[in-house]
């Protein structure tokens, strides 16, 4: 039994989210994962961008950083290297992470920086009232796409796998226990952990029923180290698989790489040392 309770991680601020928003389940799952891992709240820092889900840090009793749109990853990366003892978590939505901030994901993956990135994907821009996002299905009619959106949605799991992300998972707000287990595994991963959470927007794009119908857990015999198998299952769009697609602990995390490099650094000789060498 954990000595800590999920309620310890709760701030006094009431979420701004609509009743029924998928993000409540993510907030609860993260608090539960923190409690189970018994991480003291003040040793956790949560960084976010802009959007409904990015209000997240205010609702936690941890160190929180609600930055500008699209930059939770570099912000969190700076925090992690600034103080590697911290448990740093980056959070945000699909617009924040895949559109304006999409350029940061491959580099977080290349560095294998030791932090989980939880994207609450509602397939829509909720805070600005329902414009199509990078994961909105093509043809979706909204005020900003009155004739149907012309872009195809991107596949976040395929993208993360292609970038070489060492931990890739998909969860669903409608499956809170599984969600908490996946977030806990992401927190324990010694590298960059990408978690796409299907987190419906009840106001502008209510997909709870849709996801209940089309999602299912990854097959029991699925091998998390088999990249090609992960890619095959990630390509499926009629069935969306939930669970951990990839878990590769063979690569060093960024902070570890920095430590290894530092241990090998030999300072360049100063003028006096060079002169002395020649004098001998």
């Amino acid at each position, binding site marked *: 039994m954990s000595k800590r309770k999920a309620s310890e991680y709760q701030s006094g601020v009431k979420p701004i989210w609509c009743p029924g928003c998928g993000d409540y389940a993510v907030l609860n799952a993260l608090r539960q994962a923190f409690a189970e891992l018994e991480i003291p709240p003040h040793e956790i820092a949560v960084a976010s961008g802009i959007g409904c889900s990015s209000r997240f840090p205010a609702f936690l009793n941890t160190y929180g950083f609600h930055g*500008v749109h699209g930059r939770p990853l*570099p912000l969190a990366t700076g925090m992690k290297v*600034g*103080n590697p003892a*911290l448990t740093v978590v980056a959070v945000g939505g699909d617009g924040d992470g895949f559109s304006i901030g999409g350029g*940061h994901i*491959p580099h977080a993956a290349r560095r294998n920086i030791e932090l989980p990135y939880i994207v609450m994907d509602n397939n829509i821009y909720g805070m600005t009232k329902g414009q199509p996002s990078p994961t909105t299905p093509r043809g979706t009619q909204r005020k900003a796409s009155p004739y149907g959106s012309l872009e195809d949605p991107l596949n976040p799991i395929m993208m993360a796998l292609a970038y070489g992300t060492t931990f890739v998972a998909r969860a669903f707000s409608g499956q809170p226990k599984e969600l908490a287990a996946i977030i806990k595994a992401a927190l324990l991963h010694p590298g960059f952990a990408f978690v796409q959470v299907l987190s419906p927007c009840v106001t502008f794009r209510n997909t709870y029923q849709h996801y209940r119908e089309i999602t299912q857990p990854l097959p029991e015999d699925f091998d998390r180290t088999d990249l090609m198998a992960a890619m095959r299952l990630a390509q499926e769009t009629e069935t969306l698989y939930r669970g951990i697609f990839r878990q590769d602990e063979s690569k060093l995390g960024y902070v570890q790489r*920095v430590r290894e*490099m530092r241990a090998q*650094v030999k300072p360049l000789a100063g003028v006096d040392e060079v002169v002395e060498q020649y004098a001998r």
Partner: protein
Amino acid sequence: MKERAVLTGKHFMSGDDACAEGALAAGCRYFGGYPITPSTEVAERLARRLPEVGGVYMQMEDELGSIASILGAAAAGARSMTATSGPGLSLMQENLGLAVMLELPCVLVDIQRGSPSTGLPTMAGQSDVMQARWGSHGDYSVVAYAPWSPQEIFDLTILAFNVADRFRVPVLILSDEVIGHMVERVVIPPAEQIPHWERKGPRQPPPALDEPPYRSFQADEDDLVPPIAHAGEGYRVHFTGLTHNEIGYPEITPETHDKLVRRLIAKIQRNADQIIRTEGYYLEDAEVVVISYGCTARSARRAVREAREAGIPVGFLRLISLWPFPETQIKDLACTVKEFIVAEMNLGQMRLEVERCVQRPVRGVHHAGGELITPERIRGAIQEAISR
């Protein structure tokens, strides 16, 4: 480690290298940047040197990531810096505003080149002066210093970290390609002689869960600066770029907004005497005063010295801090001076500021960038002003 951070001794060093050494001597332990001419040597020197002193150098994916990462590192307690040039500074503007709003200490080095747009990547410019002051949206204040030699970029980079920490404000080093690539003698003092101003830390222990929350944006009355609690020190801090109350929570009201924005500006005004730096030559009896800064100030000093030698009553005011603008000093000079000359490698950005402050004619010696303004051109302007 400490002796590796401060390379005490006499060196022959470029301005970009001296800037990097100033940062290390000041205790900078995180650099996040993106390659851009003519600032790249700052990054390359730190890439080699930071790991020697236990720091981290990170080449980020773009300038937006660079500045976001230094803000993260600042919140985690590190002295952190980035270096760029005009186009990169443009990309950093949104996060620069965030740094102002969150009062996160950090240093941005801008080695200016010919602008606008891609402009003259390998040639000097001084046209980011207004971008540095007003480039982000909203009303705010920042601090900017303009060094005129490799030695001074070393000294001012240390001052930049101290001012950033002491007043919780982003500080810019607004240098230029001439100073960045010029190689001169740089004297680095012993480590114990490097000035160090501390960040103010919280004065009470972290509150317990059942106690009222820690007020991370409650400013002290004397200097208007709130103490800072870093991540991991036990305090619950919430940073948001939204208008926030003293606890740090969003408070979307006109009253809170007006109070917060006014304090962020008043904080710099109230402490201006500790931030502003200028240097005057021959000002006592000057009828005409030349105002200049950065690389152009080198030409201005020679022009003024030669004019003085010819018996012309001209003085020289060098702006070391550009922002906050040394308004009082210039207004005082206007009581006795008949005419001002502003020499700068842009088409009149600082001349506008001088014109705002004085009821005297202000003559400009300008160039859009690419070549140093010669002492002869400034000398010519002095002659015209005197014989007017």
